[in-house]
């Protein structure tokens, strides 16, 4: 190996290589050509190896990421049935007009929005509070962090099934606990708002710890001098939190909002498994059917893949709108500060 190191020395340094015996013109010429060859190989390596390193990712990405994205848009303009996915009939925008006329689509869109809000807002607020506490010097802080992250290791399936039992109407632990404090039992599965709260609880439980760690990481990156100067200016802890911590966390908060919004738009497994009737309608009266579940129902139960594609693209457009709104708000915030 050591010899190869030697011979592969880059030409830029090559001329100065010490200890080479002086040679006759023929071998000098040979040597020169050898160096040219190496130099070309070297140039090629420098030039093309970055592409070699990124191309496997992009090849897989084009096949399993980009192509499906575009193809979904294409399929949404056709009538395609699950039973014969290769038979595509051009229908223009009919899939879109049909789902816009469909009351279940709007119901699912509204549910996705409300579940998104009641799962994301408390989740991020709690995560912020816990992160603030964990930012103190604590005994067993690693234990707390790992324990808070444990739900993240739990799957949607396991978590949903456990919460179905905990939220049981007659013998569930949550109703029992409510009863203990004198609150009437709640029909967690059939009442519209309570069922949405229950579905959101599963999401909150699984993701709060993860967001906590992200906030905590950002908090630990805030320079201590900012707090010191704020304290010197007479700011109490709450004012320090408002005037130092929150502004420093703004990019992280924005990041978690975007990620949670995307996550919330895709909620699928929780409402699917929370349904006592084991259907895909999100409860007997569609009370917690999300867009993800509606897409599944249209595509895999009703076999209308074209219509399901239109739902998917509509979700995508919603997200783009939310992304633009996010961007505008963050620019406003930055401009005002």
């Amino acid at each position, binding site marked *: 190996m050591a010899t190869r190191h030697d011979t592969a020395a880059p030409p830029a340094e090559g001329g100065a290589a010490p200890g080479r015996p002086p040679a006759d013109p023929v071998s000098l010429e040979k040597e020169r050509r050898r160096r040219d060859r190496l130099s070309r190989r070297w140039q090629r390596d420098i030039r093309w190896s970055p592409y070699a390193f990124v191309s496997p990712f992009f090849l*897989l990405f084009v096949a399993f990421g980009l*192509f499906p994205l575009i193809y979904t848009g294409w399929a949404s303009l056709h009538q395609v049935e699950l039973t014969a996915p290769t038979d595509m009939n051009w229908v223009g925008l009919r899939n879109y007009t049909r789902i816009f006329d469909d009351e279940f689509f709007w119901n699912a869109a509204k549910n996705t929005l409300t579940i998104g809000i009641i799962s994301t807002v408390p989740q991020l607020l709690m995560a912020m509070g816990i992160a603030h506490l964990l930012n103190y010097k604590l005994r067993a802080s690693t234990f707390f962090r790992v324990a*808070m992250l*444990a739900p993240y290791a739990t*799957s949607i399936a396991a978590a949903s099934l456990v919460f179905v039992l905990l939220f049981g109407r007659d013998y569930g632990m949550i109703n029992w606990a409510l009863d203990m404090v004198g609150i009437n039992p709640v029909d967690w599965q059939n009442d519209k708002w309570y069922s949405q709260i229950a579905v959101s609880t599963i999401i909150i439980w699984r993701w709060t710890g993860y967001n906590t760690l992200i906030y905590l990481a950002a908090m*630990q990156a805030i320079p201590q001098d900012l707090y010191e100067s704020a304290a010197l200016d007479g700011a109490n802890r709450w004012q320090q939190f408002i005037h130092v911590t929150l502004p420093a966390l703004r990019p992280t908060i924005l990041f978690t909002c975007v990620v949670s919004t995307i996550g919330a738009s895709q909620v699928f497994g929780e409402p699917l498994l929370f349904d006592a009737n084991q259907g895909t309608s999100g409860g007997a009266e569609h009370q917690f059917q999300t867009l993800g579940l509606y897409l599944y129902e249209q595509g895999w139960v009703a076999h209308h893949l074209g219509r399901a594609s239109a739902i998917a693209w509509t979700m*995508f457009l919603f997200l783009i709108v939310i*992304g633009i709104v996010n961007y505008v708000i963050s620019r406003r915030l930055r401009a005002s500060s």
Partner: protein
Amino acid sequence: MTTTVTPPDAPPPGAPVKESKRPRLPKAARAGGQLHGGPIAYAILIVFTIVSLFPLVWTAIAASRDNQRLAQTPPPFWFGSGLFDKLEIAWKDANLGEAFFNTTIVAGTSALTIVFLSTIAGFAFAKLRFRGRGALMLIVIGTMMVPPQLSVIPLYMMVAKLDWTDQLQAVIFPSLVSAFGVFFMRQYLIQALPDEIIEAARVDGASSWRVVWHVVFPAARPAMAVLGMLTFVQTWNDFMWPFLVLTQMGNPTVQVAVAGLGRGYTPDQSLIMAGALLGTLPLLLVFAIFGKQIVGGIMQGAVKG
């Protein structure tokens, strides 16, 4: 603090001021800094820890009780005697042996591939200069925003066309790409891999692949381990895509098998809990062992993200 050699108020000109050399402030002024948590902080954290862990513990409690007991108030708060029997039945009913094997293959393959591909791509984005780098990186970041539902339908068509339905490769192939992984490794390598080391290896005549093998991989090992674990956890827990393509239940992953237990006609609650527990247990073990590193990895990814 007692070992400071140079006086703290006279740093050499141009030298970066180190934190330890700053003059100490009066105690009141440091109030905003690293405070010790008081009893209230501990109390709140303990409550949240219990809320975090309780559903997991209760899964085991419910799995150890029979259905009559689960259909009574108050609900059970402590273990019964039936845990191991139920686990055994759930193991057989949901065919969890095969499911574990399948899921290990899927999660293992995707974790190894993603770690390898993300490391070399992340290295290129972090340390190599090439045309189109900025634009390509923007694409990588952009794809992190695309919801997976968008690709589900054409992926399903592809899988159907390739006759892969109900086969493991249908789950494996789409999970081999991770934009997050590329981003994560790039962020790590920018900092963890000094340019001088790469240059030194170059001067010694190492080709790009040798640099990757002998310099990048050793430097990236901690991040590779974290990314591998995160990917493994994520793939292990993935539900939607396996649920869609492994429809015949002949060849399920753990999550599909566990969900299947809950979707029978007469659901046996404690059996479902036993299945849920079995499906989660391996990851909880991983967490118990590597929890600290995983936490560190998530926080590391977050700071630079």
